C-alpha cells in the first residue's frame, strides 16, 4: 500500500497516522480524523485550500498545511 500526505490525496484512502503530536493531533482526532478512518477528498477551495474531506459521514474542512501532517494510505495502491 502506498502512503501519501492528506494534502496530496485525490479520491479515497484510509488514515494511518500523524506526523505532528500534542494538541494538534488531539484536535484532529476529536473531529473524526483518526487512524483507521476512511477519508475521501470532495473539493478544494479557490486557492487549493482548504480541502473539504468526508470522514465517517462527516464533512470537514482542513487547511492544506494542517493536512500535510496527516498520513493516508491508498487502498488500491496506485
Amino acid at each position, binding site marked *: 500500500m502506498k502512503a501519501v500526505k492528506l494534502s496530496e490525496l485525490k479520491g479515497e484512502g484510509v488514515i494511518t497516522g500523524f506526523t505532528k503530536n500534542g494538541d494538534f493531533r*488531539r484536535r*484532529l482526532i476529536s*473531529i473524526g480524523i483518526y487512524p483507521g478512518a476512511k477519508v475521501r477528498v470532495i*473539493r478544494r*477551495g479557490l486557492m487549493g*485550500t482548504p480541502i473539504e474531506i468526508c470522514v465517517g459521514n*462527516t*464533512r470537514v474542512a482542513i487547511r492544506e498545511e494542517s493536512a500535510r501532517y496527516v498520513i493516508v494510505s491508498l487502498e488500491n495502491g496506485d
Partner: protein
Amino acid sequence: MATERKTLKVVFVGNPNTGKSTLINALAGSDLKISNWAGTTVEKVSALLRYRGYDVELVDLPGTYDILPNNLEEEITFKELLSEYDVIVNVIDTGHLERNLHVTLELAEMGRPMVVVLNMVDEAESRGYEVHPEVLEEVLGVPVITTVATKGIGVWEIPKAILKFAVPRPAVVYPEDIERAAREIERLIKRPEKRWMSLALLSGEWSPTDIPKEILNSVKDLRERFKGRDLFLEIESARFESARDIAQRVLRRRKEEASLDITDRVDRFVLHPVWGNVFFALLTLLVFRFTFLLSAPWVDYIGLVQEVLGGWVASLGLNPLLTSFLVEGVINGVGTVLSFAPVLFLLYLAISFLEMSGLLARAAFQLDALMRFAGLPGKAFVPLILGFGCNVPAVYSTRSLENFSERLKTALVIPFMNCSARLTVHVLFAAVFFPNVAPYMVMAMYFIGVLVAMLTALAMGRVVKSENAAVFELPPYRIPKASVILRQAYNRTMGFVEGAGGVILLAVVLVWLMVNFPSPEDNFLKLLSNWAVGVFSLIGINDWRLISSLIPGFIAKEVVIGSLAVSYLGGEPFQAVGLWEGLRALAEGFASALLGTLKGLIGMFWLPSLDLSASGGKLGEVLRGVLTPASAFAYMVFILLYTPCVATVSAIRQEFGNRWAALSIAYQITVAFAVSWLAYRLAVLVF
C-alpha cells in the same frame, strides 16, 4: 405526604449542532434563565422544569467534540462535567452517530447517571436507515430515547428517563495491558469519574494540577512500561473501533442511500469557487441591510423616548446643573446603552440563523484562503465580518476560536473594521468635502480599515505563532427553529446590556463632567483639546472643536457629528415637555417605528442607493471653513482608526482583561496618528 420538592441538576452534553438548546426549549418553554459561567462571560443557559415533585434544572453545556477541552467553550463543559450534578443527558445527532458516540463512550466512563437521546431520527430515517435504540440501551445499560426536537416528538420521555438514575457501564474494550494499567490508577482515585480520569492520565494528554502527587508518580511509572508505544492513539483508536461497531448495529441500512443528498446538491452551488463567493457577497449585504434597516426605526424611537423623558425632567424646574446631569448624563447614558440593543439583536438573529442553518461554516470555507494570508484561523472571518456591523458582538464572537492567541489576535484586529457608527461620520464628511466622489471616499475608508487590520494581523502573526490544527466541520444544512434563534439572539443581547452597560454609563457621566466643569465655557474638554492642537496640527487639524468632538466619540462614534454641531452651532436649550404631549409623541413615535420596520422588511431586498448628495446643511458650511479637503480626509481616517468605542473596549476587557484593553487603546491611537499623518501628506499632494 411531604410537600418538600426535591431538586435535580441535569447537564445536556454532546457534539455541536445536535439540538441541545432546542430540546431544553421544548421541555422548559419560557422558563429559561440566562447567566454567565463562573469566571467567564460565555453565556450559560439553564431552565427549570417542574416534573413529578422534582424541580429539575436543565443546563445547556457548550457543544464539544471531546471531553478533554480544545477551546474555551469546551473547557467550560469539561469543568461542569467534573462538578456537582445528578444526571447527564447526552444528545446525539443520529445521522452522525459514529462520531457522536465517541463522546458518549467517554461520558459512559464518567460514572454518573446518564440518559442518551438520539435526536433528529427523522433525518437518519429519511436517508434510508433503521434506528435501533434498544441496541445502545443494551450496550450501555441506560435509557436511550429517540426524538425529533424541532417537532417536539419524544421529548417528554427524557424527564421520565432521567428519574431512572441509571449509571452506564463502560463499553470500550481496550488492549489488555492498557486496561490493567488503567485499573491500577483507578484504585488510587476516589471520584465517580475515576475510570475516565485514569485513562486520560495514562494517555499522557491530560496533566491536571490538582491531582495528588502519588497518583501522578504512579502514572509516570506505568507509562514507563509502555515506552515506545503511543498510548493516546491506542486509547482513542479503541474508542473509535467501539463507536463504529456500535453505530453499525444501531443504524441499519434499509435501502441504498440516494446518491446525492440535499447538502451535496446545495454545496455544489454554495461552495462553487465563483457562484459561491457571489452568493456570500450578496448574503452579507442582505444581512447588513436587514440589521440596519430594521433597527434604525427603533434606535430613533429610543432617541425619542430620551427626548420626552428629558423634556419631562426639564419641565420640573430643577436647578439647571441638576437638570443637565439628569438629561445629558443619566438619561443619555442609559439611552446610549439601549440604542445598541436593536442593532445587536437583529445582527445576532441573522448570525444565529446562518450558524444553525450551516451556511456560516460554508462562508468560512470560502474565505479561508484570505484568512490564512492574514495569519488568522478560518473561523475568524465571522468576527471580522460582524465587525463591519458593530465591533461589540464581533469581539464576543471570538469565543468560538480555538486558542487564546488566535482569539486575542482576532479581537485586536476587529476595531479596524469600519463599523456602522463610523459610517455615519464618513458619509457626512464625504458629502461635504468630496461631493463628486463621495461613495468612493466612503469605500476607501473600508479598504484602509481592512488593510490596517490585515497588516496588524500579519505583524502579530510574527509575534505569536499558532501551531493549531486548522479544521472545522461543515454540518448538514438544516432549517433552524425560529423560537430557538429568537431566544439565542435575546440572550446574547441581554448579555451585552448587562456586561457592557455599566462601563458605557460611566463613560457618559465622565464626559458630562468634562463638558460642565470647571465651567461650561472653559471646561476640561476644551483645555484638553487646546493642549492637543499641537499634535493634531500635524495632520492639518487646527481647530480645538474638531478635537474635542473625538472624546465624546469614544462613547459611540456617531456621537461625533452631534458633538460637532453643538460646538459649532451651539446647543439647543432643553425643551420642556408636558405629560400628555410627551405621551402622545411616544405613541406616535411607536407607530411610525412599526411602520419603518415594515418598510425595512421590504426595502432590504433592494440594492442600497449610493446617492450621498446630502450637503451636510449648516454644519457642512461651517466645516468647509475650518478644514481643507486634505485635512478632512485625514480626519476621516483618524475617525476610522482611533480607539475603539467604549463598548468595544469594555468587551475586550471582559474577554481578555485590563491589560489587553489598555494595549488596544494605546495601539490604535498610535496607528490612527501614523496612518492619518501619512494620509494627510499624500492628500496634500493629490487634492
